């Protein structure tokens, strides 16, 4: 009995999420000490300041949202490469509706959310109704959405001059935190509740684990999958609005390459790319680990002197991802290796697991 309790503790402490948390804390402490300095005027500057921490949060919201959007998608063994392009399409449509369409900002935002959901619906239809592989469908829409954004604006038009009341959402603080962080938290909590506290959400895991099994268990697999992709479209539209508010401009190149960061964060967070397992809090930790690494490196004096913050953060993110992947399979490989050895030797008298 005590033994099993102990084991549970051990498995919790060694779970992927906890390991990632240790990495995150270690990263944070390292940068806190190594990335904080005093400047010429004797003011403490760098990673350890509250301002910097808020900046990190502010900069992570859009990629964080896309990562949240991708978590259910990847848990159902799917993928969505189009979210970054959709962010761009939604951003310029939002700008166009407001600027050229003469709509009020809330109405434009509302319509943009609808368009995002519809675009997600296009992915959903192709994937579920025609049973096409999500990788290829979203590769196509990745090109299509960005292409539409460019075709609509001719690549040239940039929507700017948004009113200050809207820019507040992206640039100011509200109740102590960057304003968009509240929206991010809201979405995060909603997705967490959906995935971890409803039978609905557990159904996604079942589908990812075995779609056939889920079908036999009576789950409407097609409809559930469609929902996941539409949700991703909706969240990408939310990210588009936040992005527009943060930069004060909507342009066809918004969010280029964000899908890769988001996928990296999700996988780093312990969600299996083959589906069936993963968690929203893992994704959040993954986003945080990458954000702290990126921003922390830019505060390190050594890295600054090398003028290499951008490249180093890419390099280390890649390395971290490989490390996390290797780490996630090594225990299993070791145990199979041991099992092979056990099978070769006569069974040992020690109590087995």
């Amino acid at each position, binding site marked *: 009995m005590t033994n099993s309790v102990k084991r549970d503790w051990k498995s919790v402490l060694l779970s992927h999420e906890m390991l990632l948390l240790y990495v995150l804390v270690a990263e944070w402490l390292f940068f806190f000490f190594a990335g904080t300095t005093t400047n010429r005027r004797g003011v403490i500057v760098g990673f350890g300041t509250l301002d910097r921490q808020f900046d990190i949060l502010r900069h992570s919201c859009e990629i964080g949202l896309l990562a949240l959007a991708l978590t259910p998608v990847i848990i159902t063994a799917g993928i969505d490469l189009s979210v970054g392009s959709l962010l761009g399409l939604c951003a310029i449509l939002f700008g166009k509706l407001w600027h050229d369409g003469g709509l009020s900002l809330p109405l434009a935002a509302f319509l943009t959310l609808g368009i995002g959901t519809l675009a997600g619906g296009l992915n959903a239809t192709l994937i579920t109704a025609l049973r096409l*592989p999500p990788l290829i469908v979203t590769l*196509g829409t990745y090109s*299509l959405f960005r292409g539409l954004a460019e*075709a609509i604006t001719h690549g040239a038009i940039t929507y700017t001059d948004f009113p200050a009341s809207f820019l507040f959402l992206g640039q100011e603080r509200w109740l102590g935190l960057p304003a968009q962080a509240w929206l991010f938290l809201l979405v995060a909590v909603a997705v967490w509740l959906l995935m971890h506290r409803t039978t609905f959400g557990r159904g996604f895991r079942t589908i990812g684990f075995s779609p056939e099994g889920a079908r036999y268990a009576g789950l409407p697999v097609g409809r559930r999958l469609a929902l996941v992709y539409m949700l991703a479209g909706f969240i990408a539209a939310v990210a588009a609005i936040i992005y527009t508010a943060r930069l004060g401009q909507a342009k066809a190149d918004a969010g280029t390459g964000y899908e890769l960061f988001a996928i990296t964060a999700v996988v780093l967070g312990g969600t299996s*790319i*083959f589906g069936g397992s993963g968690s929203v809090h893992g994704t959040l930790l993954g986003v945080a680990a990458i954000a702290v690494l990126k921003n922390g490196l830019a505060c390190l004096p050594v890295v600054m002197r090398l003028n290499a913050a951008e490249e180093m953060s*890419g390099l280390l993110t890649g390395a971290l991802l490989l490390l996390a992947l290797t780490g996630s399979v090594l225990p299993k490989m070791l145990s199979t290796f041991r099992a092979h050895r056990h099978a070769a030797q006569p069974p040992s008298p020690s109590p087995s697991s």
Partner: protein
Amino acid sequence: MKRYFRELSVVGALGVGLLGLAIFAPAFFQPQPLLSLVTREAPTLVVACGMAFVIICRQIDISVGSMFSVCSVCAGLLAARGWPLLLVLPAAVALGALLGAVNGLLVAGLRLPSIVVTLATMVTLRQGLNLVRQGEFVNLPDRVQWFGLSQTAGQLVLVAGAVALLVALGLAMRHLAAGRFVYAVGTDAEAARLAGIRPQLVTFLVFGFVGALTGLAAMMNLAQSPQVQPLSGLGLELKVIAAVVVGGVAISGGRGNLWGAFAGLLLLACVAPALTHLHIEAYWEKAIQGAIILLAVVADGVRSRKGGTG
């Protein structure tokens, strides 16, 4: 005939497109510019062959663009140091094979998902190259371009080489045991194992092979111009994956062939010059490419629902 229906339909689409061009923009078919355009796509074809192998094996490799850049720059630096091309070529291929083998080791050895592994190596290689080269061009000695041949001869050598490679690999896929092993592993790795194939070894070799082909492609690109831009190869992975998929290679593994990939590549490669010839504004390009990809997969989907796949 029925067996190659999917590939023939791509060829048909390509034919219709080319016919349209012949009517509305006959200038497209002037031999010299066409040869230049085709030569520019020769390296892409070599990488697309490799990608077809990987996808038939039910894996994916999105690091080819970064590998291409790394091989280009390294080969360029060696050539600029005065290495003879006969040594630079194998060096580039070996470097590519090595990089591919790293992917292969992680995918086959540790059984990690290839999309994530190659995502990680893609970012790592690209940023590593940025860190070292900072975007600086490599200027090559004059003898490198066209391998020291005349321009037309060089172009013909490159195109003929790429096509010969395609034919050799295409035939090997169909008639050699090794080729069939790739199909077997891609269709059902467990069944392949029971049949005496070592799926992990096949997977590893496929990744090493695509790396080697990428190194070769980098070399073919190097021979076309007197300079190497470290950015070259950016976005190559999406281009070849799209070509392979449009050509009817199933992302779920085990189905498709190199001929289809070839047709798919030609179709997509025609889009940009065709727009120029038809005087259509450039901002439609991405949307059109996306539509072609979607159309191809939707056709696949509709056909498989009707139960027409062989």
